């Protein structure tokens, strides 16, 4: 690949957002994602676009709501506690069917936690962090290159389905530097005839999530659910490594998946056939891929930097056809290769 540059995950995501046509960025300082608003404060004015540092995360996400309703590509970024503060508006945007990209460079929790990378925000992202029945598209990068590439995907998916999209990264992915190529891609232009652009010469558009008349809210919810079903049918990104002949299948995303890749090489050198299913979209979840793998796998091992959140979705997908084990670290801890190998060898012996 030519034109590769050495860049941090946070900056790669920021530059990709600019290349993807993000017209307005709204942010608020929180570690470990400060490089994103800092980068945007330099680059957006150069491009003649909008950078605003809000007075709180609450303000930032509501600025995103306003910009999105006006029909422009818009984004905010934060880290776990800041994302928690945004949840009211995220629920509103899901109800309003407003597209936007929200990047969560997640850190250890709960509460103030720490500033190390973590994956404890899976439930919040995938199961709906705010109130009401809704889902968000959730995309999980695992490298600096993907921090860039999946940002393009996120903007396209947000516009295509009129829904907020979460990029669920973590502090390690945000801070690490790798060689990456950020291409200028052709922007998929989607006509936003629903946007509030001034009703001169047309009927007024209404963006709303409040329905008080009898059955009206249920009907609106049915419409939303149909959309979520459509997304489930059409969108699923997953990476599979050496799964066809694998006795042991790891399921891991983001930083954890990188560690599992290395574990697989080591295990295979010791004649243990291991493979990896890496969900890239966490919602929709690659249920079918896991279900198929469960037909021949000896057992599954889910590895996360959490107390065990995604493992619940893995179990739902496996439907009891194979044992599902879990290994995790919490509060910014990183799973170690040696510990995982030790556990796998033990489980492997016991399963024989």
């Amino acid at each position: 690949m030519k034109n590769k540059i050495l860049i941090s995950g946070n900056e790669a995501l920021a530059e990709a957002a600019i290349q993807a046509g993000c017209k307005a960025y709204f942010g608020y300082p929180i570690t470990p994602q400060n490089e994103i608003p800092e980068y945007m404060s330099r680059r957006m004015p150069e491009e003649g676009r909008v950078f605003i540092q809000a007075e709180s995360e609450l303000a930032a996400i509501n600025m995103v709501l306003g910009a999105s309703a006006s029909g422009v590509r818009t984004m905010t970024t934060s880290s776990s506690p800041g994302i928690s503060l945004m949840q009211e508006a995220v629920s509103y945007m899901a109800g309003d069917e407003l597209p936007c990209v929200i990047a969560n460079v997640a850190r250890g929790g709960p509460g103030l936690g720490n500033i190390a990378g973590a994956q404890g925000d899976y439930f919040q992202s995938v199961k709906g962090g705010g109130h009401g029945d809704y889902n968000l598209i959730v995309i999980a990068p695992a490298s600096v290159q993907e921090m860039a590439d999946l940002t393009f995907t996120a903007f396209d998916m947000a516009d295509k389905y009129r829904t907020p999209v979460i990029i669920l990264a973590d502090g390690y992915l945000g801070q690490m530097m790798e060689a990456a190529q950020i291409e200028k891609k052709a922007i998929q232009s989607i006509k936003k005839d629903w946007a509030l652009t001034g009703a001169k010469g047309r009927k007024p558009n209404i963006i709303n999530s409040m329905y008080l008349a009898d059955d009206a809210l249920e009907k609106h919810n049915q419409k939303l659910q149909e959309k979520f079903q459509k997304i489930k049918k059409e969108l699923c990104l997953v990476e599979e490594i050496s799964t066809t002949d694998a006795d042991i299948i790891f399921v891991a995303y983001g930083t954890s998946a990188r560690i599992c890749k290395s574990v697989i090489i080591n295990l295979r050198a010791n004649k243990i056939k291991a493979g990896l299913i890496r969900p890239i979209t966490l919602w929709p979840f690659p249920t079918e891929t896991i279900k198929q793998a469960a037909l021949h796998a000896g057992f599954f091992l889910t590895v996360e930097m959490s107390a065990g959140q995604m493992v619940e979705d893995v179990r739902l997908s496996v439907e009891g056809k194979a044992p599902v084990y879990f290994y995790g670290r919490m509060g910014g801890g990183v799973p170690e290769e040696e510990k995982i190998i030790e556990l796998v060898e033990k489980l492997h012996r016991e399963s024989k």
Partner: protein
Amino acid sequence: MPTLKELAKEQELLSGGHRLCAGCGASIAVRQVLLAAPKPLVVTSATGCLEVATTIFPYTAWEMPWMHSAFENAAATCSGIESAYESLKKQGRLPVDTKIYFITFGGDGGTYDIGLQSLSGAAERGHRMLYVCYNNQAYMNTGIQRSSATPKGGFTTTSPAGKVKPGKEQARKDLTEIMVAHNIPYVAQAVVGDWRDLTTKVQKALSKDGPSFINVLSPCRLGWGCAPEKTLQTGRIAVETCFWPLYEVDEGVHKLTYKPKEKKPIIEFLKLQDRFKHLLKAGNEALLAEIQEDIDKKWKKLLFLSGEKSE
């Protein structure tokens, strides 16, 4: 009023060994506030340098009951604590004459911006507490991002000076006057660099039976790019240039607590700090003039409010 010598004999309530920078204005402000305050004390802090660097678990530098919850809610948390003490008194579980003093510390990010709502609520409800803003004019804890206290022209990592923009474009928010508008018993501006002025104000504030607010300008060596051994001088020159006038509003009455004999030009303050370096380059004369004009205008207004003769 105790002398500096007498104050120095008191027990330090922010103990050494914390991890704030050498020359940090915030730690000086906090130590002086705590020395001057009547006891016993309960302290609340908002998220920020002060909170992070003084309470790295399992250590704490605070020699009294101390609480932190999040970034936007220090004043709300303190309201809850103060109400709980009042309730305990009403229930007869604390003697009715128990007098405990409540102080909240927040940086300008946690006070001017994200915490303004909870501060305003606490002031309006009338909780008996002193809120001290250690104001270093940017989000220093997360890497020097702009805040609404950052002065016009100031460089921060989210208001960079370059070809397109000259640093922060907006004027700083006048939080002191916003607090005055709450009609609370006592509001003041103080500075790290005039200990007697600050400690007197703390004692006045805590003698009130209601909310009080002190906005303390606290030089930050990293964020301002000033010499760590010149923290106090940098604070004092902010006063001498009328960038940061020392005054109080006691029961609604404005009063200057210090009046410079001769008001110095703002450039004397700006030139001590890297965050304004770009303003001193050729081509920025108009912006410099504008900054001076803003300060002159505010000073004139403050003289009028304080019943002083206009210069």
